[in-house]
């Protein structure tokens, strides 16, 4: 396989939690996690709330500092001594957040949201920005007339499309999709995930899909890592996991079977 875009090894993340005044405790949110993402690969991170999925995403995005472990981008280790690489990486990774009702600025038109993202990315000459906005909107399946709209006038699925368009503005190597479908219902979420699959091959990025929905991960991911309490308990391709004997994976598989209606409820 080709070289990994981003590789994470031995990643640990701690949080200091103030329980009562002056009494602090450290919580290990993520414990020695290894992950590698190759170009055009879709890796799913599956686990329940509080299992550390989002912490991994945020650390990989450089929003949280890890307490141990390395993140490697295109074969170069990212650390504070290598600011130039860090800077490049931060420009070439995008995040789509969970709730499109919160992640878009309600006072900015779609056009301004995208223009700002393009300006920050700095990849398109100023004269071409307007054309690029049209191109981004079309690539996520929205009509060009949506430039003038405010988020309030858009449905949940449309908002998520705008958020994806904003993420694409950076021409990312890595796109982190943090529970992008959990605020949407099944049919709209299917459209959004399909869009992501199409864009992944068209725009050539790796995608880290974070979800609590194992059924979704089984359907679309190239490989899946199952997380519990900050650790990866099992990983494999969807087919390998379907026959898994690991207790927690089995539990999630059973839940997935109930929620998809393919097994009778207990």
């Amino acid at each position, binding site marked *: 396989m080709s070289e990994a875009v981003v590789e994470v090894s031995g990643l640990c993340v701690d949080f200091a939690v103030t329980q009562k005044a002056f009494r602090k405790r450290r919580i290990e949110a993520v414990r020695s996690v290894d992950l590698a993402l190759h170009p055009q690969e879709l890796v799913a991170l599956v686990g329940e709330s509080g299992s550390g999925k989002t912490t991994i995403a945020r650390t990989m995005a450089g929003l949280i500092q890890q307490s141990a472990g390395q993140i490697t981008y295109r074969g170069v280790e990212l650390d504070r001594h290598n600011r130039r690489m860090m800077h490049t990486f931060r420009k070439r990774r995008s995040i789509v957040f969970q709730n499109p009702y919160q992640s878009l600025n309600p006072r900015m038109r779609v056009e301004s949201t995208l223009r700002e993202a393009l300006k920050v990315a700095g990849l398109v000459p100023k004269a071409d920005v307007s054309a690029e906005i049209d191109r981004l909107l079309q690539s996520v399946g929205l009509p060009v007339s949506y430039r003038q709209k405010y988020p309030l006038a858009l449905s949940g699925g449309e908002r998520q499309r705008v958020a994806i368009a904003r993420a694409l503005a950076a021409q990312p190597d890595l796109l982190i999709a943090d529970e992008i479908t959990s605020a949407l219902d099944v049919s709209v979420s299917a459209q959004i995930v399909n869009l992501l*699959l199409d864009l992944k091959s068209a725009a050539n990025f790796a995608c880290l899909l974070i979800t609590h929905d194992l*059924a979704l991960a089984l359907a679309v991911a190239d490989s899946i890592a199952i997380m519990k309490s900050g650790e990866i308990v099992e990983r494999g391709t969807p087919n390998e996991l379907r026959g898994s004997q690991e207790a927690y994976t089995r*539990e999630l598989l059973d839940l997935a079977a109930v929620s998809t209606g393919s097994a009778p409820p207990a």
Partner: protein
Amino acid sequence: MSVPAESPAEGSSLVVEDLCVDYRIEANGRVQYVAALKHLSITVAPGTALGILGETGSGKSSLALAAMRLLPKTARCTGNIQLGDFDMLAMPTKRLQRVRGREIGLVMQDPLSALNPVRTVGAQIAETARFHDHSLSRRRSHQVAADMLESLGVPRERARSYPHQLSGGMQQRALIAAVMVAGPNFLIADEPTAALDKVTERQIVLLLRSLQRERHLGLLVISHDIGVVSTLCQEVAVIYRGELVEHGATSKVLTDPQHAYTQGLISAARRETDDRGHLVSFVGSAVEA
């Protein structure tokens, strides 16, 4: 115990007849009405559970709001909604306030926005208990609140927590406690697990199921999740664009769906993929059918 819920009462039935809900929309100075529900009729017998399946925008939540008479002023509502002996749409507001909560409870979707962020969950549950039973002393109402939380699997001392200090599952349990403390015979659950992950969702669904069975509640579950509906409900009604497209026993509708929309909903929920590896999405395809 002075909490009315403790005595297993006979559940009420909910009969909805020919319900139409339209929303008034003003765009560019023109007034328009958008239909959310069109001539909907459903019946929930006492002590049974009916699931309403449908997508965002299908009118599911309008049904919940209409049944509680909580629709906004911009909505126009015609038809008939009968809860036991109460005519929900015609009743004077004063009496309605006694029926809401005590006879029919509503569990909303997002507990963090349904609960008051600046009051402890215990205080909120106690407030509801006192509103419906004036003989409760303040101290007693707090005990009732803690009892209620405990019976729903939340440790007693959590009554002193603020909503943001609780996990999503506990918030939802606290919200259910605030609804159940008034002792309703009928419960409407509007997407009760939408904000939760699959593991917690399962716990809340099983909690609702045991509550329904123990207290012989009438239950109307509104959801787009087939797993939630199939676990809780013997019967299911599928709504598409404000109209009832399919109705029947849950096992039958889910294994042998007749309407194209129901079939699409089920294959999307199963996360079926086509030959290109894309998920099956049925918007647009089922519309013409």
